[in-house]
């Protein structure tokens, strides 16, 4: 069922204008084969080296090229618990595709779309790639059902550990389910990846926030021998400017979560200003536009070149008719009767001024950690993230591990997957009494 309403071309992709529709067409066998045939099949392939989660793009592209579609799907699933999601949301232009040798001829292989194709075929073929042995080893609790925990849980379950994931919200997925626009990451893709983790015997306990509804000591009493914290960053940063508490001012986290939970039923009326220059800001702007906003403007304090958002995301919002005003620093949110009426920003050049009519102002300037001390008495960094090695994940408390955004301060899904995978190895090493035992 195609809901294409615009024939605008964005790198050959049609722009879709329905909130729940994917922005990018998927490949079919024929088009996937054409793209795979463009791959120059490098020796010692740089794309594979460019993947933080070791998803082995060179291997799965070669499998597609040599008509082993199932092998391609298996390679991805084995390496990356969130192969479907990362296929949609990875910043390829900074990772595998940036490394692609084909760039020396014309343009990189569309690795993300090939990965999405292979995962779609995994679903179509109803493949069961991974099989977990009977869970006879220790019980491990993962806190938060986002990318880091899911990746960690997959690894542990494959090694025979009994894993339970505790999630504060009523659906698993974390940022995948609540923090990304469906046009980039459809829910069925998220659900499929999560189902593959469930199929390994990982248990999910939803609506239970560790530190509030259940304590670490209670978990230990229940027999959990290791605890993994992969809670992510859920507190939006806010600017201390006049009008920040007006009705109509909202955080990116709240806004995106509400929009996704409503499955696109939420309506946005009037004019919207989004503050920020990352993917989250782009997602907020696109969400606002697709849910009915009249005019959406992104205001960012640096230049487009400096914006951390993915190029594809920047192009997408522009194709939706969203303007980006750069080098403006928020000054004031103008209110009337307690509601947002306008937005004022000053140019970083010390001269320019920006005054916009606004009914909503969304802060998308980054997230920070909630109070992790509520979970456990572990050492934190100054910014509230957990103090531990990015890849090893040992906190100062024995048996407590952490990875993902809550450690790195907010990076990509694929980096959270990579860290979750690698910290799983630390947990295994700890539980087999080789490392971290005090």
């Amino acid at each position, binding site marked *: 069922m195609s809901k294409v309403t615009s024939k605008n071309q964005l790198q050959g992709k049609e722009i879709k204008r329905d909130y729940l529709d994917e922005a990018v067409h998927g490949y079919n*066998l024929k088009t996937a084969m054409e793209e795979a045939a463009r791959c120059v*099949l490098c*020796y010692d392939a740089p794309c594979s080296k460019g993947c933080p989660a070791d998803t082995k793009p060179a291997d799965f592209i*070669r*499998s597609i090229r*040599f008509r*082993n579609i*199932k*092998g391609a799907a298996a390679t991805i699933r084995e390496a990356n618990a969130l192969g479907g999601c990362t296929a949609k949301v990875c910043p390829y232009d900074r990772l595998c595709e940036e490394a692609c040798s084909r760039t020396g001829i014309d343009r990189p292989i569309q690795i993300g779309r090939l990965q999405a194709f292979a995962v779609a075929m995994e679903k179509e073929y109803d493949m069961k790639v991974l099989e977990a042995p009977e869970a006879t080893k220790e019980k491990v609790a993962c806190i938060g059902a986002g990318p880091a925990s899911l990746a960690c849980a997959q690894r542990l379950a494959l090694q025979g550990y009994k894993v339970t994931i505790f999630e504060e919200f009523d659906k698993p997925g974390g940022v995948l389910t609540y923090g990304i626009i469906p046009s980039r990451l459809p829910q069925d893709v998220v659900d499929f990846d999560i189902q593959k983790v469930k199929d390994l015997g990982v248990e999910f306990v939803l609506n239970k926030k560790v530190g509030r509804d259940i304590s670490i000591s209670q978990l230990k009493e229940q027999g959990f021998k290791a605890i993994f914290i992969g809670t992510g960053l859920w507190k939006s940063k806010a600017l201390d400017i006049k009008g920040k508490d007006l009705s109509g001012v909202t955080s990116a986290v709240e806004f995106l979560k509400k929009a996704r939970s409503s499955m696109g039923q939420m309506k946005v009326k009037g004019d919207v200003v989004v503050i920020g220059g990352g993917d989250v800001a782009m997602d907020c702007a696109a969400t606002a536009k697709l849910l009915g906003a009249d005019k959406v403007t992104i205001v960012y304090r640096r230049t487009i070149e400096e914006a951390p958002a993915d190029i594809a995301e920047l192009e997408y919002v522009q194709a939706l008719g969203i303007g980006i005003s750069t080098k403006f620093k928020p000054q004031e949110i103008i209110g009337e009767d307690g509601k947002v009426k306008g937005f004022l920003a000053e140019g970083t050049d010390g001269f320019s001024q920006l005054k916009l009519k606004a009914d909503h102002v969304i802060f998308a300037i980054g997230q920070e950690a909630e109070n992790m001390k509520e979970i456990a008495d572990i050492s934190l960094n100054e910014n509230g993230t957990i103090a531990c090695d990015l890849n090893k994940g040992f906190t100062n408390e024995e048996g407590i591990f952490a990875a993902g955004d809550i450690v790195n301060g907010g990076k990509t899904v694929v980096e959270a997957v990579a860290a979750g995978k690698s910290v799983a190895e630390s947990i295994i090493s700890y539980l087999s009494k080789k490392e971290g035992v005090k």
Partner: protein
Amino acid sequence: MAKKADLSIEYLGVKCENPFFLSSSPVGGCYDMVAKAYEAGWGGVFFKTVGRFIADECSPRFDNVSKEDTPWIGFKNMEQISDKPLEDNLQAIHRLKRDYPDKVMVATIMGSTDEEWKELAELVTQAGADLIECNFSCPQMTSHAMGSDVGQNPDLVRQYSKAVSSATKLPVIAKMTPNIGNMEIPAIAAIEGGAKGLSAINTIKSITNINLEHMTAMPVVNGKSSISGYSGAAVKPIGLRFIAQMKSHPLLKDIQMSGIGGIETWRDALEYILVGSHNVQVTTSVMQYGYRIVSDMISGLSYYMEDQGFQKLEDMIGLALPNIIPAEELDRNFKIIVDIDHDKCIGCGRCYVSCFDAAHQAINWDFENRRPSVNDECVGCHLCLNVCPVPDCIRPGEIKYKDESKRIPKDIAFQTRYE
């Protein structure tokens, strides 16, 4: 890509871990190459042909045929048999068998007299080869007492097969040339001479391209070139045909075949198995992509067998043979009219062009809406289906019978898919 079913098979009494072999060619000509191929997963190797003759090669020596943006549709190769001393090759064969006892080592040999064939057979047997293949088919030898000139002569094939078989206890395989109308004739001669197995096809005599500047064929060797062997994806249909024809001959149907020609993927390999091969041999795609391609062959074939419920490779050998029948025996009582899906159609008009210019003017073209429609002239040839660039846009539709009394169940008529 973890899938690894049991792909083992017994070939002429030798246990093979899988049916994927390198053919006797540039891809398996020394210890290091073959060792790397074994490590990559190849079940065995037909070692580059050894003989008393030591090749003196030209430069350059390859060319490839492309179409639009696809290179290597076909490949031309002017190399002959090994350019190394026989002793070096024998030593490599010996060391490889010693270091990789579970991998299969087939020594491919080529002589020019009874005595030479016998001597080579004895030497490679002593070196530890599992099997011997007689190369009766290299089309670019500089000696006319060797290669495909021998393979076209059933008497010589019989004579040399006999000489080799008499000099070794190992099963002997005859490698056939496709540069002939009926391969069955020399094949039967080889079996009469004592060969136990047959390999086909060697390369096809070819001129791949003419160089328009130097007025000679490619590759240009100091202003000249020669006819020589053609291989690669383009020759697979010819290889399949020869294997199927030999396997269908009453005197050859029980002979174990090794299929060669244009194999790049597990599907290509399986096709050779389905027309009666016990294993396959690969060179051109390894020249293009390297030994690594075997991993997708192993994995892909494993998935197929699991999906289809085949326990043993052997159970698939020749399954397509009963369904490949003489043209006069085909059921010609129906035509399958096509359906064009206007939602999928992108309005390119390729079906219209091909149908009008090369078939039966059975497609009308709506200029205003840019859409084709099928008229009553359709004979069910499916040329349109072959040219349509959109998957599943044109599909087999209504079946029209010439004799209504001889209808057949719809489900066998037909899963026409062109891949």
